[in-house]
């Protein structure tokens, strides 16, 4: 009797692991496929062989420019930003145990975006220093939101509403800086309002890659502790997790990723918010949705950018596409949260 229940337990666990592995590999393949698609297809179609030759460093008239200079930076940026938003977003949602507590709703991306806009337009900075400023601002805002929602412990709803209030202030600051900028450039403005990978350069990918390696690595190495935090603070400390320290580390890592991505691509709307719930839906509630959410973030940004450029009647920056996708889902989620209580 005991042995059969143990066997079913083990069998279930194996099945879950198999399912998890197949989900992750399918998503990874999807990312690769979309990446290849966005390298090969644009205003003109480049044959796959030429794409590969360009990637290997050959000079081919025309293709070297379109693939190497235009499409590759854009696709690389989409993947990196998508991974960062997806992973950072789901981390917040898991840690605060509420799908609405995503960084783009509680003001953290707005904080990073406001800081980046300030650094770029008012202080005329560029390069990695912008990312650093954005990360610091993102951390500051998350501390502020957390601190302001402390009152007999943090209640999810209060934290989200405080975050929405802070976010409203930061967005009005962004709007002010953009409107007082010497040349009001719609393309630039759209980047900081909804996020875009237009005009991406390969050089910008380096800080993003670095932050993904450092913060993403830190997060994934702590994913077990994060799982414990999902069970509630008491349970987590009973399991031997230092709750305050772990939460701080995880928050720093998640904010770091979100803010570095925002500093480059702007706050790509709702990618952080959408990835987690989609991942949780696919892998089921018993597996960790971290890696799947990161991959889904990359899929969303790649697909959104591709659709925004070529599939829709007029050209949209990626943030508008993901924003239009995310808006109905946000409303659906509010309905569900109000009706049945929240859980990712």
């Amino acid at each position, binding site marked *: 009797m005991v042995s059969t229940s143990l066997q079913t337990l083990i069998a279930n666990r194996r099945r879950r692991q198999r399912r998890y592995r197949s989900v992750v590999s399918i998503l990874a393949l999807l990312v690769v496929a979309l990446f290849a698609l966005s390298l090969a297809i644009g205003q003109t179609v480049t044959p796959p062989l030429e794409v590969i030759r360009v990637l290997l460093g050959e000079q081919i008239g025309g293709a070297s420019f379109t693939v190497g200079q235009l499409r590759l930076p854009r696709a690389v940026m989409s993947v990196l930003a998508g991974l960062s938003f997806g992973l950072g977003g789901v981390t917040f949602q898991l840690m605060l145990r*509420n799908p*609405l507590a995503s960084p783009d*709703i509680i003001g953290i991306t707005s904080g990073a975006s406001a800081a980046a806009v300030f650094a770029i337009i008012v202080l005329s900075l560029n390069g990695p220093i912008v990312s650093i400023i954005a990360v610091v601002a993102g951390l500051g805002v998350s501390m502020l939101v957390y601190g*302001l*929602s402390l*009152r007999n412990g943090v*209640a*999810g*709803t*209060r934290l*989200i*509403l*405080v975050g*929405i*209030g*802070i976010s*409203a*202030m930061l*967005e*009005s*600051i962004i*709007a*002010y800086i953009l*409107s*007082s900028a010497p040349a*009001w450039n*719609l393309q630039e403005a*759209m980047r900081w*309002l*909804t996020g875009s990978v237009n005009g991406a350069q390969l050089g910008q990918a380096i800080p993003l890659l670095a932050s993904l390696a450092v913060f993403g690595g830190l997060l994934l190495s702590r994913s077990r502790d994060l799982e414990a935090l999902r069970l509630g603070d008491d349970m987590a400390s009973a399991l031997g997790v230092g709750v305050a320290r772990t939460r701080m580390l995880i928050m720093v890592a998640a904010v770091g990723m979100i803010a570095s991505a925002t500093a480059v691509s702007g706050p790509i*709307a*709702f990618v952080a918010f959408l990835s987690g719930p989609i991942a949780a839906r696919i892998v089921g509630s018993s597996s960790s949705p971290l890696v799947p959410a990161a991959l889904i973030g990359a899929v969303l940004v790649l697909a959104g950018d591709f659709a925004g450029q070529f599939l829709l*009647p*007029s050209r*949209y920056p990626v943030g*508008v*596409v993901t*924003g*239009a996708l*995310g*808006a*109905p889902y*946000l*409303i659906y*989620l*509010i*309905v569900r*949260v*109000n*009706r*049945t*209580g*929240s859980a990712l």
Partner: protein
Amino acid sequence: MMTDRRPDAKHRISAIALTNRNRALWLAGVVALLAALCALSVTVGTRDVSWSDITAALAGRTDNLGQAAVALRIPRTLLGVLAGAALGLAGAVMQGVTRNPLADPGILGVNMGASLAVVIGIVWFQIETAGAYIWWAIAGAALAAVFVYTIGSLGRGGATPLKLALAGAATSVAFASLVIAVVLPRADIAGGIRSWQIGGIGGATSERIWPVLPFLAVGFAISLLSARKLNLLALGDELAVGLGERVAFARASASIGAILLCGASTAVCGPIGFLGLVVPHVCRLLVGIDHRWLLPFSALGGACLLIAADVAGRIAARPAEIDVGILTALIGAPVFIWIVRRQRVREL
């Protein structure tokens, strides 16, 4: 019996008379403040204008640049007063109807709903006249209000303040992102994306103001006439029913007034948030919770705050301007957070 009661009643009447005198004093003060702010709004701006030019412009002359600048500031000030009064009053009515200290046309998504409706009308249905804008805006405001109230009252506990605020704020965020998606392909109004996301009174002309006046007038009338009903609603639904009030009718009629005010003001100014949140709270501190006083005060206070924010935006950013929608968010969001912090919550 009678002799027992009389001194007490007399005492109470004198107390009411006293507070009424206080309120009358406050009323005079607020009206004077509004007049002063309007004067400031006409005289202060990017261009320094001499007194003679100001008086000449007020008399209707536009002979030189200074006079022309003042002539532009007059409709702007008028619009500021109207929109501020509309939003302040709408906020007070919404707080009364929902018995929710966090209610505000911006936070509950009503203004953004109006904005989205206008933008959809412009881009997909080629509406062009100011009159059409208003109908679309009012329809959008009404749909958004019904929608947010419905989803806010789902589940346990009905429409608690935090649930309603969360439903409204999330709806507002979602609508804002749809506004961008709808407007962006239209290069000709793309510069106007900003004006449908963050409201301002910069581009006011009298041609744009005239069409909204009837709507605002009806909205003001309905809202102000609902004061007694809101007082009864404040006692709680059961008591209000016991006192013979038709609760659903009272809510619906007061809401229609507020929706007219929000829709009409958003059609001209774009969505201006947080004004309707802050003003009624300040007014409650001054004149108490009686809606017969609170509503007119909120209207006057809203006008004062909007004009003050607009003038401040013109002075602070010379030679540019800061849209009032930006400043009201900066002033109002901290108040919003403060009220959120005072609410008792349980985990959703």
